[in-house]
């Protein structure tokens, strides 16, 4: 059903001008990303306030800032996860990272911060996949380099505060094999070459590594891929927090799951973290000034925010006081909505800055403080992560207390 509806929708949107491109390897658009169109195009659901309230109720703690501010704004079957949770049925979390570079910026951390909250709030286990093989293939890195980057990125991930007694981190190069590989083959048998070309846009020029990669990212959604963790729990549901550009992988997975007798994984998806230069700019690892990196010093953050953050304020103080700031495009305000915990303060800033009473300099200062605090905290935590800790997180070991 889902398949046919999607095909129709895809055909329709292709006729209209395909202004934006969103897939796991490319995100671009002529103007702002139109998320409504994306939800329509992909066929997922909006996450509305009722969900946020329900999560609040079920977990007896305030919902995470990313939920309150609609950073995670779309989902598939999240309601089923919550229904099951209410009945006492647990689930596990699955997220991942493609370790293409050593330099992580705040946008990279967003899904991990949210996943950590989910782990704490629902008290469920988590598997984190480091797709070093994917980066080796797509970015043409050597095997050694991708493995090394995977380990370095693992340290930053661990610094986000995951609970080691409930978390299993693995890199594809180390872990693929055994039951995991058996599931990969099962999934691969269900997806034709044409289908995978349709979903991911592969061409005849792409090497076979790329074409056979999708099952690797699909398979962690099935508990039987982790016999050391979930043996005997074949019906355990999976929730995948990710950025919305990963949706194609899991559309494919959800399509295949019933044919293998597995539950479909649920998804909860976030929007893209805007570049400092604005929504239309692309955050790229090669432009150091397009994002705030977790290794930036306080001074660097201040410089970047002051110099490069795209401002929605008016060009002169008089105009600004008259017309107020354009909050739609103002990057400091956007970033604050991601990271400023205090709802009341954000609301205050919205009013003052939007009306022109507050100037750009002030909001930028506030942003600098907020970002510095986050980066400092992350850096302090990162400094405590040892190689032994990474080894322990990545060891194939049982997690006896993962649901407590």
């Amino acid at each position, binding site marked *: 059903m889902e398949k046919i509806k999607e095909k129709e929708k895809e055909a329709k949107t292709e006729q209209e001008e395909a202004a934006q491109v969103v897939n796991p390897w490319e995100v671009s658009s002529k103007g702002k990303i139109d998320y409504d169109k994306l939800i329509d195009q992909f066929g997922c659901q909006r996450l509305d306030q009722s969900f946020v309230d329900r999560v609040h109720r079920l977990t007896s703690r305030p919902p995470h800032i990313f939920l309150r501010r609609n950073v995670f704004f779309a989902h598939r079957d999240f309601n089923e996860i919550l229904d099951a949770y209410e009945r006492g049925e647990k689930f596990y979390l699955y997220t991942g990272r493609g370790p293409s*570079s*050593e330099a992580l910026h705040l946008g990279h951390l967003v899904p991990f911060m949210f996943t950590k909250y989910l782990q*704490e709030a629902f008290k469920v286990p988590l598997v984190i996949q480091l797709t070093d093989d994917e980066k080796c293939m797509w970015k043409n890195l050597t095997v050694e*380099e991708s493995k090394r980057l995977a380990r370095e990125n693992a340290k930053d991930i661990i610094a986000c*505060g995951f609970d080691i007694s409930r978390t299993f981190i693995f890199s594809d190069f180390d872990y693929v094999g055994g039951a995991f590989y058996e599931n990969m083959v099962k999934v691969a048998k269900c997806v034709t070459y044409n289908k995978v070309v349709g979903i991911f846009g592969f061409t005849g020029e792409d090497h076979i590594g790329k074409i056979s990669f999708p099952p690797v990212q699909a398979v962690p959604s099935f508990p039987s891929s982790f016999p050391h963790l979930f043996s005997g729990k074949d019906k355990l549901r999976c929730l995948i927090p990710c950025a919305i550009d990963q949706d194609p992988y899991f559309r494919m997975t959800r399509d295949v799951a019933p044919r293998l007798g597995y539950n479909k994984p649920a998804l909860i998806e976030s929007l893209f973290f805007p570049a400092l230069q604005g929504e239309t700019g692309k955050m790229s*690892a090669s432009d150091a000034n397009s994002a705030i990196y977790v*290794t930036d010093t306080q001074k660097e953050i201040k410089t970047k925010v002051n110099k490069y953050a795209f401002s929605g304020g008016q060009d002169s103080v008089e105009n600004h006081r008259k017309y107020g700031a354009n909050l739609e495009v103002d990057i400091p305000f956007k970033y604050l909505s991601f990271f400023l915990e205090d709802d009341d303060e954000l609301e205050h800033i919205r009013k003052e800055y939007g009306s022109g009473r507050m100037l750009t300099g002030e909001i930028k200062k506030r942003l600098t403080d907020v970002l510095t605090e986050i980066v400092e905290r992350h850096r302090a935590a990162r400094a405590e992560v040892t190689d032994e*800790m990474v*080894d322990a997180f990545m060891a194939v070991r049982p997690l006896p207390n993962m649901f407590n």
Partner: protein
Amino acid sequence: MASFAEAPAGNATTGEKVFKTKCAQCHTVEKGSSHKQVNPFSLSHCRLQLPPIGDMGFSKSQLLERLQAQKIQFSQYDHPVVMTVEAQAKYVGHIKGGLSKNLFLKDKKHRFYIVSALADTKVDLRVLSQRLGLGKGGLRMAPEEAVGEILEVPLGCVTPFALVNESARNVSLLLDQGFKAHECCFFHPLSNDTTISLHIQDVEKFLKSSGRMVAYVDLEANPPVGKDQPPDLAALVPSDTSSIHNVVEKTATLQIDGDVNSKPVAVTAKASKVPSAPQKVKPVNNANSSSSFADPEKFIEEILKKASAIVVSEIKEENIKQHGDQLGSVVSNSMRKNLSLELKNLATMFKNTAYTEGFGAGICCSTKRV
């Protein structure tokens, strides 16, 4: 080498000229001359050995000239020929700086390494061998002939500077990262009768300018090497294709034990394919032993410190006036609001550290169950 007894009678004038241009740098014949202290005509230790055939390799003076040309500051100390670190220490040991010991090593596949370390750094060849991926007994001291053949220096004169010779182009250099802590370090400049002292960064700069790669290593570290832990120095093994580009690529992506400080050297076009991250890697302080996450006392201290800071900042005159006896709950709420997240993170780190230690211990020992 010919002995003087057998040589044909020479022309004194030509001889004087030759002496002045070549020998005088090391040798002196004048009675009571000052600083060129070398034993006159002790030719068995003369650097300027009569070459059989072929290239000479760099000489000390050429090296020193090169260093000066690159405006590298160094101090030069001449002394009698020394063959050991102890002997060298007799002459320069009193001067502030890091004395070096230099080992010339060879592995089973006839690849060569120079390990240059501070004199008191412990160098365990078995550990190094494992870290290089050569197995436990892979590294041996190189035979004496190799010192002359490959490094083109006399015995007892192994030095990082030997790398400038063409014949040493495939020798891998491991520098003790401990050198960085010293203002200057002592090395032989291709000759046992002199020692120069200079900053290790200048040694690095000089070698790089000759197209040689340099790697800093924590020589005393002993990381486990096993199925899941690849040898951390594997990239320092000279490759067979012996192209500088290969070495650059490997060293550019090197993760040297615990030292995230070591910036990858000369990024060439090939290595720049590796993501730009190397410039962004800032020092990460792995001060594990002093962290508050392994020690309950320090952990609690950290918590109390943060909590007290909040309490102290909240109990101000205006607040007392405003809230009166409600101040208690105001302070407590403020603490919750400001500290919950941070303390939870601290506690998670503490838990993770404890688990890691337990895990590490668990995989090492096997429990005996009855």
